[in-house]
Each structure stands twice: as C-alpha cells, then as structure tokens.
C-alpha cells in the first residue's frame, strides 16, 4: 500500500487536535477521542442505503405535514384550523414578516432542503457516481444541518398544546403525526451521514 492511501485515514479530533489513524475502525464501531471523548466517527453498514430510504420516507411525510391540518382550536362555537404554511402566513399577517421568515426557514425550508440534498447525495454515493456536484451538495448539507430545528419545533408544539388545552378544545390533525414522523426520519437520516466516511467516499469518487 502506498503512503498516499494511508494518509486518507488520518483524522484530527475537532475538539483537541489529537491525530488519529482511522484505518482500524470496522463496521458497526464508533471512534471516540481518547483525550477529550469527542465522537470522531461512526462506521455504519449500508449507511447510504439507509440515508436514501430515510430521506424518501421523510419527504413523503413532509408533504403530508404541509398539506393537511396540523391543529384545530374550538372556542365559543367557532373553530380555527391551521396548516403549517398557514401558520407562517398568519405570523406575516400580524406584521412580523421577519419572524415568519425565520420560523419558515427553521421548521420547513432548511429541513426539507437538507432532506432533498442528503437524499441526492446518498443516491450518488450509493451508485458510486463520479459527478461534479456531489462535493458542493455535501458542503451545503454540512453547513445547513445546524440550522434545522425540526425536533425543537416539535417540543414547542407539545408545550403549546399544554398551554391552550384549558382555553378551548384543541384537536390534532394528520399533519401533526406526519411532522412527528418527518422529525424522526430526519434524525435517523442525519445519524447515518457520518462526516468522516462521507468525505472519504467523496474523495474516492473524485471525477
């Protein structure tokens, strides 16, 4: 084996700069930094197949979550039904367009974009395509994923349920459950996209 292939297995801990040779890691194993306990990499079997599967399932639930009623609120004989896109336009209607844009980005636009891009990257890596866009897509995913707040939003939904349950009759719609499923698939998808192995594979597939 040449020196060059060896060098691809090097990794420095992002938290303490300790240098490691990752070539000994096997399927199903995780590597933690011995100095600071930072999780360095997790080597999963069929990782890209899982990424693609979770991405497609998640996107189906995302469409349902946008399309159907999320929650309903009934008081004094009147009922208001809300879908997620309506929630955004309602905030904008109250004159808070900046808040509307932020919420739309954190709970819908960025998560959906990350899911589509990760699915595309997964297909490309799985098929072993040597294309020019895969690296740019990966860069975008690793930049954007920090700003997805799917799970935070879901806890927020549960808190608001408790807050208004005493005021009126609150109903839960199809979109509520779809969004919960979307959040789960989103988390599972990203947990299969390991930074170290994804970039290693991208380097192997350089056009």
């Amino acid at each position, binding site marked *: 084996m040449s020196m060059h292939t060896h060098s691809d297995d090097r990794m420095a801990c992002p938290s303490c700069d300790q240098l490691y040779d990752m070539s000994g890691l096997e399927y199903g194993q995780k590597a933690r930094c011995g100095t600071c306990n930072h999780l360095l990499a997790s080597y999963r079997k069929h990782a890209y197949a899982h990424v693609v599967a979770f991405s497609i399932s998640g996107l189906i639930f995302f469409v349902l979550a946008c399309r159907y009623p999320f929650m309903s609120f009934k008081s004094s004989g009147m009922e208001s039904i809300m879908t997620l896109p309506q929630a955004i336009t309602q905030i904008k209607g109250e004159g808070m367009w900046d*808040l509307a844009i932020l919420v739309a980005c954190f709970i819908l636009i960025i998560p959906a974009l990350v899911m589509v891009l990760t699915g595309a990257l997964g297909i490309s890596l799985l098929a072993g395509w040597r294309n020019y866009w895969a690296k740019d897509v990966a860069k975008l995913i690793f930049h954007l994923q920090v700003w997805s707040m799917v799970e935070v939003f879901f806890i927020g939904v549960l808190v608001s349920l408790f807050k208004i349950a005493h005021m009126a009759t609150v109903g839960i719609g199809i979109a509520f459950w779809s969004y919960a499923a979307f959040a789960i698939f989103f988390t599972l998808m990203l947990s299969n996209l390991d930074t170290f192995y994804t970039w290693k594979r991208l380097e192997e597939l350089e056009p």
Partner: protein
Amino acid sequence: MSRVTAASKGLASCHLCQKVASVELDKCPRCGTALHSRKSNSLNRTLALLCTATILYIPANICPIMITDQLGSSIESTILGGVVLLIQMDSIPVAAIIFIASVMVPVGKLLSLFYLCWTVKFGSSVSSRQRTIAYRITELIGKWSMIDVFVVSILVALVQIGKVLVIRPGIASIAFAALVIVTMIAAEGFDPRLFWDKEEENHD
C-alpha cells in the same frame, strides 16, 4: 509528555470536511474551504457576538413576547410573565420546560461561553478535557432555546377566533430569536483546541 496533534506535525484539519492536510496550504485540497490550523480570530469573534447577545437579552426579556386580545381587553406577557402564569395555572412541568429553555439555557450559554473565553486568555484550574466537554454541551443545547419562539408562533397561528380571542406576537419574539441565532454563531466560532494549546504552552 507532549501529545501528537495535527498542529505538532505541521498539519491542519479542515473545519468543514475534516481533511488533514499540510498547514501551508491555503485551501483544503478536498473541499476547497479555507484551511486554518485553528479557527481564525475565534476568541474576538466569539466575544463580539456574546456582547451582541447580551444586549439582545434586554429587549427579549423586557418587551412582551405575546399579546392576547380577549373581548376588547389586551394582555401583554413577557417570557418570565408567561412562566409565572403557568405556575399559577398549576402547569408546573410546562413552566419548567419554558423556564429551562428560555431563561436557564440562554443565560447559562452566555455565562459558559464568557467563562470559556476568559480561561483561554488567563488559564484555568479546570482541566482542558472538562472545559471541552462543557463547550460541547453548550454548543448542543443552544438551539433548544428556540422553543418559546415556536410556542408563540403556533399560538399566533392557532388562536384566531374572530374578534373574541386573538393572540399576536410581541417584539420580544424576534429579539429572542435573534439572541438564539447570535449565540449559536458565537458557539460555532469558538475553538476548543485553544484550551489544549494553552495547556501545552504552560508545560513547555
């Protein structure tokens, strides 16, 4: 005993794709991101953003986050006011979630990052390992402060019963969202490897 670090071998790890390459290169040979051994100017950047966040903390807590219009009368509630109201309603667990997410996490995050920056400059008796773990936790919990902003968003969208009962978002909601975003960027810009560099410097 000195550790084998990337820096000690004249190497740098890419911030984005973690490729280990010679520190003399300007750009990561794999993904093209600018290559630095340490995040550039991280201490000053983090401190500047922390000051911004501290200023944003004032309107976020003084101004109303939510306005409830019920049959002609309107009630403004602040973040802490909302927590007090929930306690009066006997919803202790929900009050606890809001209090932790909206008060303890942002304040804790600001204090923790200020403290970590201070230890990089002046050293600390707390080990680098423990401070690195503290930093990781700070980074991880940051986005959970956004809960209250999402709660307000849902209530605004949902509670719209003609002229009888309407909930509107207050100015604090946007100030608080900005606070969370700024502290997230501050945490991301901080470089925990500075703890270890300082430690090694003291050993020599």
